[in-house]
């Protein structure tokens, strides 16, 4: 640790170090050296302010570090874990939406739904056979309900607005919106 860094550490003792200096200090390669220096200066300060000085050696820093390294999850890692957890749910949700679309449009076109295929899709999304059967029957029930003219118009209007919002507000590009306008024809 060079002279300048040690002076920064001394300024940190006195609350006089700026953010950039602190960052530079914490990114220094030899943190053991920094910690040892910091600890000695803290001990000198504790000794000067007698009431803070511990007459027997107190050093739990190493034990705390080991315990935290072994057990605790830092904030950043928690955020990453949350991100991973979120992405973990992307596949099942996407699969369910795809399933609903396939079954729904298939029903509209007079297709025969193949439960085995659907189960395969859900299995790929990590849903077991029992859950897949339950989900499939529920989706089929919804998909087979016939929509009257008003409901159909409302649904198309909703999809159109959604595509428009997606292309303009959410930066998803205008292709989806163009396709929707084109597919809707007179609506």
């Amino acid at each position, binding site marked *: 640790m060079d002279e300048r860094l*040690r*002076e920064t550490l*001394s*300024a*940190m*003792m*006195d*609350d*006089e*170090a700026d*953010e950039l200096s*602190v*960052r530079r200090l*914490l990114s220094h390669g030899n*943190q*053991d050296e*920094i*910690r*040892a*220096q*910091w*600890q*000695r*200066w*803290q*001990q*000198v*300060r*504790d*000794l*000067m*302010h*007698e*009431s*803070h*000085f*511990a*007459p*027997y*050696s*107190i*050093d*739990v*820093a*190493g*034990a*705390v*570090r080991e*315990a*935290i*390294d072994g*057990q*605790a999850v*830092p*904030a*950043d*890692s928690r955020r990453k874990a949350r991100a991973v957890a979120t992405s973990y749910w992307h596949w099942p949700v996407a699969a369910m939406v795809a399933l609903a679309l396939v079954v729904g449009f298939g029903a509209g076109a007079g297709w025969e739904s193949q439960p085995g295929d659907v189960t395969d899709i859900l299995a790929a999304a990590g849903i077991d056979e029992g859950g897949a059967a339950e989900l499939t029957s529920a989706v089929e029930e919804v998909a087979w309900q016939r929509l009257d003219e008003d409901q159909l118009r409302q649904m198309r209007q909703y999809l159109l607005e959604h595509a428009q919002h997606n292309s303009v507000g959410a930066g998803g590009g205008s292709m989806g919106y163009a396709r929707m306008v084109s597919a809707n024809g007179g609506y």
Partner: protein
Amino acid sequence: MTQASLLKATAVATRTGPSVASSMISENNSKPGEQTESQTDLQLVRKVRNGDRAAFDLLVVKYQSRVASIISRYVYDSQEVMDLAQETFIKAYRAIDRFRGDSAFYTWLYRIAVNTAKNYLEARGRRPQGSADSAEAENFDDGRRLRDVASPESLLQKDQLQKALSEAISGLPEELRSAFLLREYDGLSYEDIARILECPIGTVRSRIFRARDAVDRYISPLLNHSVT
């Protein structure tokens, strides 16, 4: 206060400790040993929140003696004190996202330490003594209890350290000693010290560093500073 009287005050402080020097200086700033809002603590807490473990190490090293002192008000066995101090810091690390900065970091840590000690005693069917009033964190004389539980050997070591400290400070060049004592005993900012000593802030910063370094080198052989 003139510079001559200030230097006299710091010279007195070297011989007698902080109280006389403080009474000779009119400003009433917080001293480094007292618990006020620390800019460095907040900087370190921000780093810890961003996943910087080294920053938390510095906070542990800074406060471990004081946390142990608080706990020793409730628990008298030194090994139990160590274990609970460790537990306090682990809890603090896990809860660091909940520290909003409304109070000083030390005050927040103080509450965790007191609750950890009380919970420990309750779990063992022992009735906790004392209060967990966080306002006490400001004025708490940490050393009293530790002095009670200290062994004669450790008290002797402390006396030796105090003697060495006085020698080290006395041996400092006048300009280093003045800046160092104004900071340590009177808690003045670098800006105030620069104004009093009529020199640039950078010079104050450098003088305090050199004084601190010289004192450290003098008493370092006597200190138990095993960093694990």
